[in-house]
């Protein structure tokens, strides 16, 4: 059977390909996905290769990765918010632009307050999103609110965009009675069924093959929706990342893989994380459509995500987006990043490539829909709202200790009924040694 023999007759070729698809799914897909720009004559094609036809070459030539071949970074406006190519400006409405900017400022303000809260011992732990606001908001705004989100831990802006309230953020961080997970997880492990944001878990990259599977399931039950999976360039080194890409590609899952390449995995800089051209270069190895973008450019993120979503859904395939950005803050409140990077480097990015400022300049200069006065007012209003939610969250009680045993299974098996009783009996005798006053009753 030869692709070349039928190449002149489109109808026969189409029938051939579709018949081929039934019996040799993998080979046909790779034959179809890898479009050639020059016609291959029959005797030059490696016809029988199970993975798909390939041509032969008589020169001993190795492929060598070269800097010149590195994938360029797509951006819409420069570091001063000036549009570079007018055709790329999506010309979003003022309402949408304001909502985007408002979300970025709210996120930033919440981060400042909660980071301080941890330093003051009010919450146990926190992770900021400094420097990545554009990646969160730009991508979230390009999705449908029903698209399922799998995150890593540094995507709070996606929740802000979708409407997760300040109360909900704080209740989770304070691990109080209003947290639907009854304070079972460390701070910033948010989740929301209503907002289609899968609860965060600490192990890195585990969400990635799950996103592939969820996309596969959603394709069958909710055509027209996709899944987005956020992960860092560090998590991309995990085996689960490889598994996710390969499964999504081979099984035609409409999943967007959004890599936040922020330069650091705790103290490990990206050049110690990989030797190749970042994460984007891996995409074609899996047969995935790929793009590298400026993660600090809201409009670039928006445009790329929107297009990627369309491709993923219409063509039923995964798309890889690598957003180049910079982690301005420390990894978490347990980290002091000045131990492994120069203060000057942080300064350079904060002043020279600041996602919030770049977007602000775009709004003020390119769209004339913002000004410094409104900016000050917004900052003050956000601070006020954040502090109000913060004060309320701090006052709420912690969950009842009995909730320790719920949700292990869908109901309580006999061993947990017994163990819960043991705990209750123990607390009855030793209550003064436990901070029971902070909790709802046992």
């Amino acid at each position, binding site marked *: 059977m030869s692709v070349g023999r039928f190449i002149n007759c489109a109808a026969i070729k189409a029938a051939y390909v579709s018949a081929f698809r039934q019996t040799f*799914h993998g080979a046909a897909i790779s034959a179809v996905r890898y479009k050639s720009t020059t016609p291959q004559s029959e005797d030059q094609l490696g016809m029988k290769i199970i993975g798909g036809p390939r041509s032969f070459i008589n020169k001993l030539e190795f492929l060598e990765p070269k800097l010149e071949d590195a994938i360029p970074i797509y951006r819409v406006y420069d570091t001063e918010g000036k549009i570079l190519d007018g055709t790329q400006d999506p010309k979003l409405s003022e309402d949408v632009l304001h909502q985007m900017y408002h979300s970025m400022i709210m996120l930033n303000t919440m981060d400042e307050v909660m980071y301080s809260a941890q330093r003051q011992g009010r919450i146990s732990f926190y992770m900021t999103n400094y420097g990545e606001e554009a990646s969160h908001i730009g991508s979230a705004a390009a999705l449908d609110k029903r698209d*399922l989100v*799998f995150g890593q831990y540094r995507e709070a802006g996606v929740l802000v965009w979708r409407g997760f309230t300040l109360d909900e953020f704080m209740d989770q961080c304070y691990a109080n009675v209003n*947290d*639907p*997970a*009854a304070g*079972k*997880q460390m701070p910033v*492990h948010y*989740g*929301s*069924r209503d907002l289609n944001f*899968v*609860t965060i*878990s600490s*192990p890195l990259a*585990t969400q*990635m*093959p*799950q*996103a*592939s*599977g*969820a*996309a*596969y*399931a*959603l394709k*069958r*039950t909710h055509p027209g929706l996709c*899944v987005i999976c956020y992960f860092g360039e560090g998590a991309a080194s995990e*085996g*689960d990342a*490889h*598994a*996710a890409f*390969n*499964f999504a590609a*081979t*099984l035609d899952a409409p999943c967007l893989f959004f890599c936040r390449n922020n330069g650091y995995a705790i103290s490990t800089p990206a050049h110690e994380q990989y030797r190749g051209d970042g994460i984007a270069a891996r995409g074609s190895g899996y047969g995935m459509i790929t793009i590298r973008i400026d993660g600090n450019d809201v409009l670039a993120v928006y445009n790329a995500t929107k297009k990627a979503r369309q491709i993923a859904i219409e063509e039923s395939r995964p798309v890889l987006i690598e957003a180049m950005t910079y982690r301005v803050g420390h990894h978490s409140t347990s980290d002091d990043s000045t131990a492994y990077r120069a203060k000057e480097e942080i300064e350079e990015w904060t002043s020279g490539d600041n996602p919030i400022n770049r977007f602000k300049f775009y709004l003020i200069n390119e769209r004339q829909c913002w000004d410094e006065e409104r900016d000050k007012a917004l900052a003050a209003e956000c601070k006020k709202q954040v502090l109000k939610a913060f004060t309320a969250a701090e006052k709420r009680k912690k969950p009842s200790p009995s909730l320790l045993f719920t*949700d*292990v*299974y*869908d109901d309580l*098996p*006999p*061993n947990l009924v017994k163990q819960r009783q043991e705990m209750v009996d123990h607390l009855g005798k030793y209550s003064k040694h436990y901070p029971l006053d902070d909790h709802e009753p046992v």
Partner: protein
Amino acid sequence: MATHNLNRIVTGLAKKNLPTCLLKRTSINSFVVTKRHATHFKFYPDPPPIDCGPTEKMNLFQSLTSAMDISLSSDPTTLVFGEDVAFGGVFRCTVDLKEKYGQDRVFNTPLCEQGIAGFAIGAAVAGSTVVAEMQFADYIFPAFDQIVNEAAKYRYRSGGLFECGKLTIRSPCGVVGHGGLYHSQTPEAHFAHAAGLKIVIPRSPIQAKGLLLACVRDDNPCLFFEPKILYRAAEEDVPVGDYTLPLGKAEVVRLGHDVTMIGYGTQVHVLKEVAEMAHDELGISCEVIDLVTITPWDEEAVCKSAAKTGRVIVSHESSLTGGFAAEIASTIQKECFLNLEAPVERVCGYDTPFPHILEPYFIPDKWRCFEAVKNVTNY
């Protein structure tokens, strides 16, 4: 057979690189015909359950195909996938399912257990019923993180906002006669430690079909380990229709009053034979219990029997230290301390990896279990 004929046959076979393993050379001119060791157990079929309708003779793999067929036909979200499941599976457990339900529902995955587990969890979280296969339980370990850190904890950590209860992972396990280190393991003890999972090990085709359907429909992530040695060797009259068997409930498969013997999977048949030997040769009446569900396990049924007999043997193929018998023994000694007439005996694989040619010496066979009956009654 005349020696010179055997010589010619062996030389001929050897010249063509064909196996001469059945013919063992004892001296330069003579041979002895040897056989590979026969199975270590006798399969005890059960009568079909009453009120489950018409039955058909099925072996273990056929009963599993039947269960998956029923799930695929009754639940439009059901997906069955894993390595090589599309053509029918390396153990023929998924024969004809792709042809019947289509490639989008019954399909091959790339060779990656962590991917199979992660993908399966995600599909379940998104609302699909998932039956994922790990080709051998020995290869489940790359998926350990996804199963223990993710699947088991999904509901707990999200307060029930998200869960993967629709997930069932099934995998062939256990002694098979020639499996060696990597085709013989049953990893129940490793996973038993992860709260949030259910682990089930069937002893027969009738049990397997009902239990697999129960796992598929249970709202918790389930691991279903299938003793591979029973795939063809175990045949019963299995109901063709839809039925489930309860999870978390042990079954007394033989009533007795002197000694309680607890096991699961293939080992239940070993224990049943030991019970017959004990009756015939020692006049001892043994009660045999199939644990069925490893977690959460049926403490009540086990302790009731232990309290009755006062003498207990727990037996599994997996190694002794940290094995699940330790959990059962520990609970029995706590709950039934004053009823015990002897310490709880454990007859298990030794604390070594699973050997190939030395398998007969490693496994808790009927002779070691028989000896344990003597120990526990002569204490």
